[in-house]
């Protein structure tokens, strides 16, 4: 059942079709300008994807997202792994992470904009902050669960501490790290859209809200569909990558809930 649903197979397609049908019917029944029928909104999708300026905006967004995500990987995984292996490091970082956890990262946008300007730097930084936390947390959990005996054997065979971290802890914790990365990927998309909604200049969030302001409701809904498809596709693609990399580990959860 759940295996079927986790594949990009028939069940998700039917779910999408059902959603679109409900939307279409609801729009026709309610009949307000603010809710155009699905068919009308979907007709706008090829128009947006054919517009070079819109594509440039989307590419801008994706570039920022990729940069923020890559930076977070480089910083968060080493921190998480060391936290899991050393109680002192864990005690050092844990309270800080706990305090940062409930801060709405995208809400830092106006403050960071004062320092770094409205451009790429501040948005990338916000995405980086948003993505780092789940990756640190899951790397920490993964590295904590590594079998001690393997590490002792490696140490006995003369492997240094940093080599042990890179060659034993990292691969052993990889399934858990990838769970964190998957949450992080969804979060990166959320933070990206939110930061662009708050600081409108370029990007997907900007198109969305500009068309809302200009009462181009079909475009608004078409953009929502595009963002939704993007989120789902990224998640499915990442799940594919995950099962190729760590097919030996049991999948933790089929579904990841996007959090802010």
């Amino acid at each position, binding site marked *: 059942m759940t295996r079927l649903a986790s594949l990009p197979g028939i069940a998700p397609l039917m779910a999408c079709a059902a*959603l679109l049908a409900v939307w279409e019917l609801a729009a026709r029944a309610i009949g307000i300008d603010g809710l155009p029928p699905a068919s009308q909104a979907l007709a706008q999708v090829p128009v947006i994807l054919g517009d070079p300026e819109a594509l440039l905006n989307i590419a801008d967004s994706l570039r920022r997202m990729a940069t923020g995500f890559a930076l977070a990987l480089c910083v968060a995984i080493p921190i998480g792994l060391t936290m899991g292996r050393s109680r002192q490091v864990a005690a050092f970082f844990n309270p800080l992470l706990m305090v940062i956890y409930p801060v709405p990262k995208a*809400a830092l946008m106006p403050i960071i904009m004062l320092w770094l300007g409205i451009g790429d730097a501040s948005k990338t930084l916000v995405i980086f902050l948003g993505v780092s936390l789940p990756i640190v947390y899951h790397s920490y959990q993964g590295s904590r669960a590594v079998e001690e005996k393997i590490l002792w054997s490696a140490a006995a065979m003369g492997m240094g501490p940093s080599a042990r971290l890179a060659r034993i802890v990292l691969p052993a914790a990889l399934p858990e790290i990838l769970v964190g990365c998957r949450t992080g990927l969804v979060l990166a998309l959320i933070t990206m859209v939110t930061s662009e909604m708050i600081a409108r200049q370029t990007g997907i969030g900007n198109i969305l809200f500009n068309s809302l302001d200009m009462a181009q409701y079909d475009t608004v809904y078409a953009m*929502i569909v595009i963002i939704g498809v993007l989120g*789902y596709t990224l998640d499915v693609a990442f799940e594919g990558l995950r099962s190729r990399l760590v097919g030996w580990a049991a999948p933790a959860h089929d579904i990841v809930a996007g959090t802010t």
Partner: protein
Amino acid sequence: MTGRATPLADVLVGLVPIALIVGLWQLLASTGVAPPSLLPAPGAVFARLVEQLGSPTYLQHTATTLFRLFAGFGIAMVIGVTLGVAAMGLRAVEAGLMPLVRVLAPVPKIALYPAFILTLGFENASKIALVVADAAFPILLATYQGASAVEPKLAWAAQAVGVSRLRCLFTVVLPAALPSVLTGCRIALVISCIVVFLAEMITSTDGLGHLLVRAARSFQTVDMFVPLITISLLGLGLNAGFNALRRRLLIGFPEEK
């Protein structure tokens, strides 16, 4: 995280990075590297926070935010728990619901906000709807996963003595899945906090998020920090409060790993 008390030394070590950050902040502000218009001194921010927490207007905005938060969280809890348990117990619901959840869970819900504005208006309803959309999924998934892990013998025993399937779901399976359900709710509570604030920042005329945006437009840097700190403290407080509640409710449950 773990039940055992953390040694005092660990607590002190944990305070170091926080002290370092505040210290660096103070240093940047007092040496004049960062002008107060860009980075006000921590003392000034906390003084303003205390002042604002005594002001009725500020508390009014906080109350508005809290109302939206709890309304959204409450609805999400009812929807999430009901659907989660139903998906566990009834094959038809599971077959219909889980693919839908699979598709919708990784979608950034904040992107739906314009649609909520257009259909529900600028007032409370659209913000509450956004909170529901964001908070319902973690609760639903936690309930579903928790209920799936419940020992089936418990349910069989109840059904053997004549309890109906539906009643069994809510009187046997749901209580047995309570630890997982409450964990989902705690995560959703912090998410609600964040989402309501972001929604208020994007379009609103009241609430804490609006106060931040208003301060940003007039370059009142100190006033930008205050709502952000307030919502973070609210999130921390709600998280801690919910944890305490969870521990009380779970007295007698086997210790979690």
